[in-house]
């Protein structure tokens, strides 16, 4: 990958990290509140379904994670497994796409 491409990935990783920092803090708070008194589908979905704020927040969260995780794995695969080159980037591109699709599907299921 070109130096420009690598720089773009570095920037995307930091920008997504900044978004995720806020999202994860909110999400951790939500987890702690949500698990009080156990979990049931009716209880969770009753609270979440139809919430536009929840839908937009978690859609943003999913997209930021789908950008962030593959770039992080890219460095790890290169340094720990020696996997570099175009095949790694294609595989991680597919992983990013898979995360985005599965994640947005989950967001629609819970908040839609």
């Amino acid at each position, binding site marked *: 990958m070109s130096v420009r491409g690598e720089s773009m990935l570095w920037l995307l990783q*930091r920008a997504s*990290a*900044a978004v*995720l*920092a806020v999202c*994860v*803090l909110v*999400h*951790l708070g939500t*987890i*702690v509140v949500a*698990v*009080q008194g*156990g*979990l*049931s*589908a*009716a209880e*969770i*979905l009753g609270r979440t379904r139809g919430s536009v704020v929840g839908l937009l927040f978690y859609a943003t969260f*999913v997209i930021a*994670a789908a950008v962030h*995780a*593959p770039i*992080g*794995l890219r460095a*790890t695969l290169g340094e720990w497994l020696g996997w570099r080159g175009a095949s790694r980037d294609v595989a991680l591109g597919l992983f990013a796409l*898979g*995360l985005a699709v*599965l*994640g947005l*599907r*989950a*967001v*629609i*299921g*819970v908040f839609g």
Partner: protein
Amino acid sequence: MRRNDVRARNHPAYWAFVVHRVSGVALALFLPVHFWALGQSLQGAAQFDAFLAWTVLPAVKFAEWGIVVLLAAHLGGGLRVLALEFLPWRDWQKTLAAAAAAVALAMGLAFALAL
């Protein structure tokens, strides 16, 4: 790894890096499963409840606690990286590593106590 390499790496900043990387890999592996599980809600509340019933097993509960701690650890470690790269105060490295660990443990404890 040579003995000298081990000694050279045995410092808080290196361990902060290891925790950040390992937690990141674990979260990347967990995310597709997490999304798939939440996607079960699309099949209706009954299907989602069937999945939730599985999550009350002690081993699964323990794994959930681990994931929450890893998420908090990755957040703490990530804030440390952003601070190192974008803020001028490098002397605070160890303090930041300690703060990252404290945030992770506090979140894990909060989650564990709520179960």
